[in-house]
């Protein structure tokens, strides 16, 4: 009985200490890339929020949709106004976990392959996703990188017939975040 309680307390303590050493960034980079024979559309967001807990493997993103910068002002306007409806859905959010967190030694420099699973919310629609990426640990920083595709249809982003040939049905998203350790109070 006593033993059980102590296990429980220990479990709680472990999870509690796990909060201690999170890594975070507010200046991560996400690239948006759509290519069709007619038009290539590229946009960059340099103010991506991301945080990671190397012990539990929790991994989150929060992206202000309006911060995407396009080459053409009109594209940016249409992106916010017609497709992403950024006034209604200001943020894109990912909440998930590194599935193979046990294989990654965040204390040791090196590059590790990772599988990240979780829920991606874009345009008010939440979908379970699983993507591959890499983590590079160097000088106490964690760099997370991944390239994956987001089908517009999955997130109910409708493209009218007139511009169907200009916009790819599946958008390539490249994520590059450099996370630094935070001291939790």
């Amino acid at each position, binding site marked *: *009985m006593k033993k*059980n*309680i102590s*296990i*429980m307390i220990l*479990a*709680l303590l472990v*999870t*509690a200490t*796990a*909060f201690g050493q*999170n890594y*975070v960034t*507010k200046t991560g980079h996400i690239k948006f890339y759509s290519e069709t024979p007619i038009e290539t559309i590229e946009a*960059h967001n*340099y103010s991506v*929020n991301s*945080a*990671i*807990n190397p012990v*539990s493997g*929790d*991994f*989150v993103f*929060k992206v*202000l949709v*309006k911060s995407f*910068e396009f*080459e*053409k*002002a*009109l594209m940016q*306007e*249409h992106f*916010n*106004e*017609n497709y992403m*409806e950024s*006034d*209604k859905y200001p943020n894109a*959010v990912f*909440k*998930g976990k590194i599935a193979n967190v046990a294989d990654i030694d965040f204390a040791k420099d090196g590059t590790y392959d990772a599988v990240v699973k979780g829920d991606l919310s874009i345009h008010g629609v939440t979908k379970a996703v699983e993507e591959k990426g890499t983590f590079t640990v160097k000088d106490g920083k964690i760099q997370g990188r991944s390239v994956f595709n987001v089908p517009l249809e999955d997130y109910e982003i409708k493209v*009218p017939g*007139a*511009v169907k040939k*200009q916009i790819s049905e599946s958008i390539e998203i490249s994520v590059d975040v450099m996370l630094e350790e*935070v001291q939790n109070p």
Partner: protein
Amino acid sequence: MIKRCLILCLAVFFAATAQVFSQDDLMDLFGEEEPKTEFAYASFKSTRICIGQSIENPPNGNLIFVVSHHFGTINQGFYEFFGLDQATTRIGFEYGINDWIAIGIGRSTLKKTFDGFAKIKILRQSSGARNMPVSVSYFGSTAINSLKWQDPDRQNYFTSRMSYAHQILIARKFSNALTFQLMPTLIHRNLVERDVDENDVFSIGAGGRVKISNRVSINAEYYYLIPGQTADDYYNTFTIGFDIETGGHIFQLFATNGRGAIEEYYIPQSSGSWLNGDIHIGFNITRSFTVKQPRRKP
């Protein structure tokens, strides 16, 4: 045994909730978003409501090519194919020099007129760190008609060809779908046709748009002439139409009792009235080109 099970369950439960919390805790690390100043954008789809100027400028570094077409009045019946046989056209270019200033030039077939304008943003509607309820712009235009002198033997001055428009555009985007705009206007003509005609004509315009889908909006504008000789002799100009946006093009179709595509003409000399069926069908086709790339972060 049961107790043990219970405790184990509890432990699992705690562990599970801890996990859920920890993702949200991670989210908390991002902190409160610093209040930024968010400027209203896309108050109108085009730089024109229908014929008249909207609060929108061509974006920085963007060149806009506008073709405006105004047909004859529909009450001319089938012989003139409801006005479609006659048309006046304006071809124009507009360019956004920076985020605040745009310039433009144009040529109208009506009175063989050249025009040049500047549109300068004075205030921008914003929320967040800095609150500004309305956007305000100044629009100034000069028009030069290049018709042959009616009486070449008379002493003719070049300045007689010139007329000017000054407008203050005050707009508020109330919601994604609704924008309202006021435009106090002064038109000055250096030379008028008759003695009684006014050189200076004041008008108050009001206009707006309602979006009916992400790509289509209904727009209307009304220019009220301040009582005077011009108001006695001419009609107020009312225009209603809609915008259809398709990628890089904006197509605007409208009906109006105004003539011509520039302020100097369509505000002070609308000789036709809606009630008499002096309605011109017209359209603008707008194409936007990115000439200068906006600066990009590393």
